[in-house]
């Protein structure tokens, strides 16, 4: 495989990880992987969850040490014992979740741990600010460095994080782990511009992402890992998405296109009328939202981050009860008191952030599935374990949750299976309306198509589903009907052939033009 690549290119290899093997107790995470990072290029690394991407990255960033194999930086062998070692060698990593101090300023965050000193004791804020301003200006994002980090959007925080790495004078390689997972479309294009600037400076990027379209757009080289082995590498311009997917999953496997039902003639299950929600500062988070959902229908909600999609689900679910407007369930007005009440009414929600809002990490797999329905499985306040077990097993089977034993900790499952556990918990409450917020975020391709199949089957059984997603492919793939949110307003509704990427994206910017 390696010989297929242009031999001349190998002169431009900046970092070479040769025959890397990494063995964890009980598993071989990397098996003889050779990975090349080309100078001044974007080197994409892809693979399903568990393919070994993260392990390889951690080795390159000095967080883990390889069991076997060697690292060469500019043809010289190096050994990385710690992240500090990596940094000294000019290798920086931007983690998926950026760690920062929200109450400190941009400048303080950037210099945390590498402060400029006066008389070797006092922090020299003036020099720090000057340097900050310079770097941010060079990047084309002259933020006010006095601003608190927590006041920035996620995209801006990421820019600061990138700038922080540029403080290092000899930065050669920047590793980016899922940098776009919480960015809006606009922010992604800003990030890509920034990446191109870094390339011009001769900095090499290692880019990890699940979003294949993005990888096609931004990367120059692609390396695919599968089950800890390198299965393919090539120039991006030589390949296409189906090449990537087939290498990732081992066989050609596209998401199965769902057979859609554009002409649902059943009754309305849910009717939302003139729903508005205000922020503390009196701005509208949601303004005059009206929509209907039919039995067995899948309604997609598309929109940029912060467009009010999640907030709508939270209002319907009873998480936030401070909205105005009315909600009808099966033709009758309902008063929303709290979440527990809404679950009884037949609503269930899969939250966007699995770890924060979905799982009880201290409980085992089984209890995480049955948690919402424990009262249903008890008599006189006492749990009937048999009935509980029976229902848990039913969910594990019907959702095909892969596990060794249901009494194991929930965190022993892969992301995709954790997501299925949350869906299972919701289904046990026998919902009429299922609200899914980014249902496939951060899960691998195989689990994704499983989730799509589950959603499809649920709709066929007559459950009405609202799916919020930032992924156009996903919305296109599974929705019978799509509404688009922009800046808290409903800016478009599309059925059938009207549902196109272009139409959705266009509508998603409409609300930003005439604000109030």
């Amino acid at each position, binding site marked *: 495989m390696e010989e297929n690549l242009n031999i001349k290119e190998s002169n431009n290899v900046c970092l070479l990880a040769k025959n890397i093997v990494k063995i964890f*107790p009980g598993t071989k995470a990397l098996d003889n992987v050779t990975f090349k990072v080309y100078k001044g290029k974007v080197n994409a690394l892809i693979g399903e969850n568990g393919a070994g991407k993260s392990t390889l990255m951690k080795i390159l960033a000095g967080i883990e040490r390889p069991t076997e194999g060697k690292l060469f930086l500019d043809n010289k062998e190096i050994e990385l014992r710690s992240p500090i070692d990596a940094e000294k060698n000019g290798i920086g990593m931007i983690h998926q979740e950026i760690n920062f101090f929200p109450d400190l300023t941009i400048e303080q965050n950037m210099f945390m741990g590498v402060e400029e000193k006066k008389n070797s004791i006092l922090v020299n804020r003036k020099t720090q600010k000057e340097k900050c301003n310079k770097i941010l200006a060079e990047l084309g994002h002259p933020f006010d460095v006095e601003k608190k980090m927590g006041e920035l959007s996620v995209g801006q925080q990421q820019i600061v994080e990138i700038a922080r790495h540029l403080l290092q004078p000899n930065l050669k390689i920047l590793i980016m782990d899922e940098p776009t997972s919480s960015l809006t479309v606009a922010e992604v294009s800003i990030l890509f511009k920034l990446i191109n600037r870094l390339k011009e400076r001769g900095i090499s990027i290692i880019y990890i992402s699940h979003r294949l379209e993005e990888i096609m757009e931004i990367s120059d080289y692609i390396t695919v890992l599968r089950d800890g082995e390198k299965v393919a590498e090539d120039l991006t311009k030589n390949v296409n998405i189906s090449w990537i997917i087939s290498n990732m999953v081992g066989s050609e496997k596209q998401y199965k296109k769902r057979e859609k039902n554009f002409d649902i003639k059943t009754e309305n299950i849910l009717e939302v009328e003139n729903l508005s929600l205000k922020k503390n500062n009196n701005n509208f988070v949601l303004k005059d939202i009206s929509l209907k959902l039919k039995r067995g229908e899948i309604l997609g909600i598309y929109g940029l981050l912060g467009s009010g999609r999640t907030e709508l689900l939270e209002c319907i679910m009873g998480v936030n009860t401070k909205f105005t407007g009315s909600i009808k369930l099966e033709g009758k007005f309902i008063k929303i008191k709290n979440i527990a009440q809404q679950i009884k009414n037949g609503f269930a929600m899969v939250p966007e952030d699995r770890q924060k*809002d979905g799982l009880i990490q201290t409980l085992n797999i089984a209890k995480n599935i049955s948690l919402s329905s424990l009262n249903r499985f008890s008599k006189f306040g006492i749990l009937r374990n048999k009935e509980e077990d029976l229902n848990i097993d039913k969910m594990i089977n019907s959702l095909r949750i892969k596990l060794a034993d249901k009494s194991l900790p929930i965190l022993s499952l892969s992301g995709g299976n954790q997501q299925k556990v949350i869906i299972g918990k919701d289904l046990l409450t026998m919902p009429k309306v299922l609200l899914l917020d980014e249902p496939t975020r951060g899960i691998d391709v195989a689990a994704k198509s499983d989730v799509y199949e589950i959603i499809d089957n649920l709709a066929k059984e007559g459950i009405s589903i609202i799916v919020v997603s930032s992924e156009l492919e996903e919305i296109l793939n599974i929705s019978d009907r799509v509404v688009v949110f922009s800046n808290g307003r409903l800016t478009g509704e599309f059925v059938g052939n009207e549902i196109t990427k272009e139409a959705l994206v266009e509508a998603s910017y409409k609300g930003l033009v005439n604000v109030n």
Partner: protein
Amino acid sequence: MEKIANPKQKEKKKNSLSIGMLLLKVRTFVVLAILLIVFSFIAPNFTNKESIILIIKHVALYGLLGIGMTLVIITGGIDLSVGSIVGLSAMISGGLIYEGLALPIFGVKIYFNVPIIIILTLISGVIIGLINGIVITKFKVTPFITTLGMLYIARGLALLRSNGATFPDLTGKAELGNTGFQFLGQGTILGIPVAIWIFAIISLIAAFLLKKTPLGWHIYATGGNENAAKLSGILTDRVKLFVYAFSGLCAAFVGLIAASQLTAAQPATGESWELSAIAASVLGGTSMMGGVGTIGGAVIGALIIGVINDGMVMSGVSEFWQQVIRGSVIIIAVIVDQVQRNMEAKMALEQKNA
């Protein structure tokens, strides 16, 4: 290419690992056994019947508080007020027996019989617990601060009840129909002290509640991840109200037993017992982060604390050294606990990677 290191070796390693885990899991038992053996050698009277009953009587007090505390800590909270509730309960029950309930408007004093006094005292414990719970859930004050405040308030009320004096004689009078209070602290049923019966029954109820009722799992879920628990339809505020009320109830029982054991009610009863309760809970493997803990663990934790305390007294260890040793045991226990948790997490990760 070898895919797995060597299956046999791996199997062996796994076995030794699981034996290690087993030892870690039953370590509290091991510690307890070692303590019992050591003290039976050092302190000659340690193993006779009287000493053992005395130790268990003390254990019942810490243990009862530890059970309430464990439920609270599992929800991610803490209850610093239990020691003061013990004192207040002792004074409420003692006052009702010794002075009766004075109603100045009618110029009369009402004397209740002992069962009613017990019930009234328990109710007041529950009410104080509920107040803790309401401040924590409705006014969003952190549990530490709320119960710290209640620690002072309840102790102050206990002192106010008698102006700091002790109610000296709680035997009651036959003509007032309020005799028999000593039964709680000094009586026996089937040769076993009543206090121990109460401890055993409340332990069983709490253990059953935690593992066999929805409420119990809601307690675990609330402490494990409150956001997720709420989204799962759990009324986490109600869960918290319950655990603080339950903790107050346990403390009221302890106050009653303590007053009954002495046949006297002292406002300083139970001072700093909340710390023993926390120690029992933590020794038993309850995580201060919430979401993890068992009643069985708390009971064993209380046994360890009781055995260390009384064992050291009987062996003539100086009062000052006792404190040093007690503190060290708690810290070491938590360190070992974290080692175990890390190992478990590692094993879970291996499961995931396998």
